[in-house]
């Protein structure tokens, strides 16, 4: 039985690769995609989601537009990481398909409430839509199957401030709502994603297949690799979101700890910092499983093989 997922996402280069990985994986069925602000504006992330689906001949997957501002903080987007379009140097045609009518947060509520226990949420961007859904319909907590979240940096340094990871920094208040909601949650923080670097060699292996998708991966990740080189001194690029997607069907890639995790919303220097109370000083119940150890090669092989399969099918 494949897992039914809704992807809440801000494509974004690594988001687009996560969507491709989901499409390439028979273990998953994407019921829908909800767009959110983050890497670029919601206008653009919505367009990018539609374009990626068209590229992979999967435009049957509905896309719903979500929030274009964080819950409380001012907007912050990251074109220096993902390019002005959000997809690096890739230039995909204007999508022909349109987003569906209705707000992304309402789509999430409606799907979860009409199919209790069946929907897995995969959140790859700032958590604004999911936070709003929780406040509008608190019963989704008991009716969602599980929530996979890419975000946070537990013992790892931040990638947006010294302490904070991008998704939780952009909307720390939404993260606070989601983390404390009581939904079953699996967090993929930078602690594991920064162990898995997509290298030039990996790209060359994919480029042996002549497909519009390999060309897309090449054009988008070239920009992403330049960013990682310039800003973080990393050769290759970190593909956070595909790693989160992989854990939905191949959990053995990571080792997990059950932890009490919170996010700093106090507006000081630690704003957006995701931290674990390892010794449980706060005596609170554990609120999520956190991926803290990873088998990088196992993930990268999975990602490359799935991409090779997908690219061979779509020429």
């Amino acid at each position, binding site marked *: 039985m494949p897992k039914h997922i809704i992807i809440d996402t801000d494509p974004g280069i690594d988001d687009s690769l996560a969507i491709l990985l989901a499409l390439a994986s028979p273990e998953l069925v994407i019921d829908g995609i909800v767009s959110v602000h983050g890497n670029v504006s919601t206008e653009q992330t919505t367009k990018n989601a539609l374009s990626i689906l068209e590229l992979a001949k999967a435009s049957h997957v509905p896309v719903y537009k979500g929030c274009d*501002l964080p819950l*409380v903080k001012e907007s912050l987007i990251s074109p220096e990481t993902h390019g002005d379009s959000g997809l690096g140097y890739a230039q995909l045609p204007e999508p022909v398909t349109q987003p569906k009518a209705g707000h992304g947060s309402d789509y999430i509520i409606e799907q979860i409430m009409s199919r209790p226990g069946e929907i897995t949420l995969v959140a790859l961007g700032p958590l604004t839509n999911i*936070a*709003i859904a929780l406040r*509008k*319909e608190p019963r989704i907590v008991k009716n969602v199957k599980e929530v996979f979240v890419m975000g946070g940096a537990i013992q790892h340094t931040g990638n947006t401030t010294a302490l904070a990871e991008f998704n939780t920094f952009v909307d720390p*208040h939404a993260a606070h*709502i989601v983390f404390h909601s009581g939904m079953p949650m699996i967090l993929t923080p930078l602690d594991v994603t920064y162990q898995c670097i997509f290298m030039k060699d990996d790209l060359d292996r994919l480029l042996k297949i002549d497909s519009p998708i390999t060309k897309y991966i090449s054009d988008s990740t070239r920009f992403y690799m330049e960013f990682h080189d310039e800003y973080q001194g990393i050769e290759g690029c970190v593909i956070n979101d595909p790693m989160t997607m992989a854990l939905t069907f191949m959990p053995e890639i990571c080792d997990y700890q059950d932890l009490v995790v919170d996010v700093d919303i106090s*507006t000081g220097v630690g704003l957006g910092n995701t931290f674990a109370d390892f010794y449980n000083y706060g005596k609170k119940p554990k609120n999520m499983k956190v991926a803290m150890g990873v088998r990088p090669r196992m993930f990268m092989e999975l990602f490359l093989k799935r991409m090779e399969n997908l690219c061979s099918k779509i020429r």
Partner: protein
Amino acid sequence: MPTRIILDTDPGADDALAILLMLASPEIQLEALTTVQGNVNLEKTTRNALALLEFLNASHIPVAKGCSTPLIKPPHGEQGEEVHGKTGLGQAILPEPRSKVVEPHAVDYLIERFLTEPGELTLFAIGPLTNVALAIRKEPKFAQAVKELVIMGGAVRSGGNITPLAEFNIHEDPHAAHVVFNSGIPITLIPLDVTYKCLLTAKDVERLNGIDSPIAKFVRDVTADYMEFYLKYEGFDGCALHDPLTVAAVIAPELFSIEKHYVNVDISGGVSTGKTYADFMKVSKKPANMKVALGVKGREFVDLFVERLESFCRSRL
């Protein structure tokens, strides 16, 4: 042309009095209520809204049910029952309402109403601002569609009534207040600085009860515990007409002295969380985002309140 109003409310003793005053004022056409948790929990505020409208023969006014918790903070729980009584309406006992809330969530109801008639409707918010904040975030066009927003909340120069610095409505959902204050909606703020100057006394209530009317009796019952609370905790005889005073922004604006300021709310999580502050000296160089009532002819307002209710009671005999 009366001012067309949608009221976001958490009834609440003083909310009930504000609803009464609105219905008693020909300058106002009350078109809908949206409910929010605040003074008491959402089930109770919603029940009270419906029951009150039925009691006043106004159940043609739709009620939409809103948020049961603040955006980020946990709700304050049952503390409010000490001020507003177990039901939220003091000692008043209203029959279980037969009418039901309308289908959409208050957030969507607000979005739908304001976007259908952009610039036509005035929003009054006299509870925590959770519903309004979510409407702003969910629908980017919402802020521009609101003609004016009158808020009961904040303590600008005056002390707080829930912490030494913060007023209840704002403190209950400071993050929502932050969203609303910075949304660009034209706001008029009615803070504690003015509401504490409008004290309804036992004598005023008795004057109203010179008319033998179920509405006058309701006012006595709904304010009884409320007055006791003020006597016990704040040491004065009478109760502050916080929420009803917002209505003066439409029916008697001349009673206020109003200043335009940049006003914001502290969401830093420290001792001043929920504190509403004005940049009087313009040190932030930010443009004014609201009109703030900083002075009021308090007794004149209370007299007006009693007169309006007297006429209302008489008209319903």
